[in-house]
């Protein structure tokens, strides 16, 4: 197992180098000069422009800029934002816990709902349950996030008043960031009602963000289950007279889980990088919006550093999934 993990870790190196090059190149390929974008309608003088060119190092040849960036990265220095002058590393880790917390809640929601839905659909294949669940999943998959989020807000926050509209916690709660995870920090703060407020604020965004993974997980579980259910050993189990719940729940589901875990892992990766719309609508202070704003402002250090760190996070998630995979299926780690 250790060798397996080490081998997987080794693949980090080329991926890391690749991501560094791509993130450096990507923002430079886009048209638009960050200095001119910054000056806006007001414009700026030629001398002033030159001052910025020198400060940002744009007068250096491209290979030199890349070299400086790479050596910086290797020393843990991702540079400073052109806009806020703050360290990219600091900015990322201030915002990332919010994204991670939301992504995890969304994925928990989608697994809790998607897995049973997939199993039920497979067991009742071709019947009403199956059709209803799978069409709902298709709707969920195709729904525009923006519309879905606003609909939920209008119904549950606006009309019914059950959930807050947006934000991470009620404005009346105010405490220091310890971990950056609101659920944990609100507990640590000891303020009455804070934890509950944080939970309430998580409900709608988790549902919205979890909708697409939910649909994918439900469909994947269904097809994996169908495959497993037609295996000989299931027939044997049934023939031995085991209760259907035991056959489906234990024997079939366990084996069907392997492809499902891959899907869950991939979904977490996507959520970490792509919760932009959900974060914007729910005023969620995560990295999705931070990245998009930076791309529009052509804030090179933030885009480069942010992409690199997000890629790193996705790689870590994928590694974890691979390890889990090995744990569940001994065949894989021996390969």
């Amino acid at each position, binding site marked *: 197992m250790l060798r397996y993990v080490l081998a997987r870790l080794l693949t980090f190196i080329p991926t890391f180098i690749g991501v560094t090059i791509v993130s450096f190149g990507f923002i430079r390929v886009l048209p638009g000069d960050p200095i001119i974008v910054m000056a806006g309608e007001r414009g700026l*003088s030629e001398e002033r422009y030159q001052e910025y060119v020198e400060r940002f190092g744009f007068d250096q040849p491209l290979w030199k800029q890349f070299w400086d960036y790479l050596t910086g990265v290797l020393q843990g220095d991702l540079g400073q934002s052109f806009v806020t002058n703050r360290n990219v590393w600091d900015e990322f880790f201030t915002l990332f816990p919010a994204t991670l917390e939301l992504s995890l809640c969304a994925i928990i929601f989608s697994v809790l709902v998607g897995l049973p839905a997939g199993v039920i659909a497979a067991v009742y294949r071709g019947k009403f349950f199956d059709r209803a669940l799978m069409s709902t999943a298709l709707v969920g998959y195709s729904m525009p996030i923006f519309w879905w989020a*606003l609909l939920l807000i209008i119904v549950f926050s606006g009309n019914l008043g059950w959930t*807050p*509209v947006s934000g991470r916690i009620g*404005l*009346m709660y*105010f405490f220091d960031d310890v971990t950056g995870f609101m659920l944990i920090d609100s507990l640590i703060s000891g303020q009455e009602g804070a934890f509950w407020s944080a939970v309430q604020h998580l409900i709608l965004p988790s549902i919205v963000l979890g909708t697409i993974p939910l649909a994918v997980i439900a469909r994947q579980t269904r097809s994996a289950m169908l495959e497993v259910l037609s295996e000989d050993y299931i027939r044997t189990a049934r023939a031995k007279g085991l209760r259907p719940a035991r056959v489906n729940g234990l024997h079939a589901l366990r084996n069907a889980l392997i492809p499902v875990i891959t899907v869950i892992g991939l979904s977490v990766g996507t959520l970490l990088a792509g919760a932009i719309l959900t974060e914007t609508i*729910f*005023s969620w202070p995560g990295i999705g919006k931070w990245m998009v704003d930076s791309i529009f402002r052509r804030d090179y250090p933030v885009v480069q550093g942010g992409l690199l760190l997000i890629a790193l996070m996705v790689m870590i998630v994928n590694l974890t999934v691979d390890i889990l995979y090995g744990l569940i299926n001994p065949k894989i780690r021996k390969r």
Partner: protein
Amino acid sequence: MKTARLFGTAALGLALTAGAAAAQTLVYCSEASPEGFDPALYTSGTTFDASSHTVYNQLVEFETGTTNVVPGLAESWESNEDGTSYTFTLRPGVTFHSNDQFEPTRELNADDVIHTFERQDVEGWTGEYFNAMGMGDLIESIEKVDDMTVRFNLTRAEAPFVANLAMDFASIVSKEYYDAMEEAGTPEMVNQQPIGTGPFEFVDYQTDAVIRYEANEDYWVEGVPRVDNLVFAITPDASVRYQRLQAGECHVMPYPAPADVEAMQENPDINVLEQEGLNVGYLAYNTQMEPFDNPEVRRALNMAIDKEAIIDVVFQGSGQVAKNPIPPTMWSYNEAVEDDPYDPEAARQMLADAGVEDLSMRIWAMPVQRPYNPNARRMAELIQEDFSEIGVDVEIVSYEWGEYLDRSSALDRDGAVLLGWTGDNGDPDNFLAVLLGCDGVENSNRAQWCYQPFEDLIQEAKTGTQEERTPLYEEAQVIFKEQAPWATIAHSVVFMPVRPEVDGYVVHPLGGHIFDNVGIDE
């Protein structure tokens, strides 16, 4: 500090929802995150709302709701005979805020004022506004006459100078705080935990989520501020801001989606305040290229544009037709100028008379939304239709924003550019000289228009009192209309939805959101 204030803030917040008669918290659902808290470093209104309008004061200030300049940290000021030197007498007894790291040992004095400007007039200064307003070239020296008197010596007479001092970059910072943080090796604190003299003291900023302030109890204006706490709840999406306002999660929200305004106006739980914005959206011809070098051609095209239709479709009512290059809320606005009539027939004839046939041109549509132009693409399409009525063929082009700004200022650019401007200091010079003066050619003067009779007037208007300058600007607007370097299209109307219990909120024409005098009626 945070923990010390914890209980207070928590109790206040609860009061907000429970409606108990405790300390009051005003919640403002702001539209974006500030870039920082040192207003001299940045140019965005969002940052100014969070810093210069709350934490800081300026020597002179804009009276909220107008563009009039009134005393701020300076009680009074006077200029010398030829307008090249201004002497300011500071207000006594003004104190700076304090925080965990800093406790001021003295009151505001001339050193703070001098430091505020001198720090911006150095090589490598990263703030843009000080230079963009030409302050570096304009200020020759700043003298400390005595502890409470400061004199600015200028390189030339420039009447808008005083209004410039009311701008956000001119917010007075504490020299003592600056020095203390330099010494502690943490100069960035000045930008992260601001110390000013303003109505609100900065308490905390949770990145991209919430900014908290508390009332400055020693504020130099009696009875201000009227609430105990001010909270900015950052809410980027306009529809969500509206939902939060309805749900009572905030009291005031900026920038409603135009499509929501009508529903808001009918909602008894929301008051929609409105005012004309200090801006103009225009279509600038390249007056140095044929056939747009002929004023007759430009006027003919202007007469072909159905501006009312643009206001309806593009602004959805949140705009008004512009006839002058400066907005109507600005002093010296020339009411007597008559707009070009919408008359495609006459326009077609004028083009024929000017010998222009089968004209095809480009119209540039900005890729971004601005108050003065919420949808440039749509606006360009409407103008394209209007022009096709008079036989002018239009190709619409657009570029990424940085490219757009860059390419549209080129001297040999073809066609006409949609762009606009939001005023900085409420002075007509800030529109007429910046956008239409000869110095702006190849830069902010997108019409590349350098017309001597106009230039002479705006140069002459750079000195003197407001009464002396007004007729000069009025005449400049007449010349502008005759020469028609732009089609003036619209001024936006700013809508500000507030909850009915909010008292005293005034929409500010310069675009900032100001809460000094805002209270909450229980």
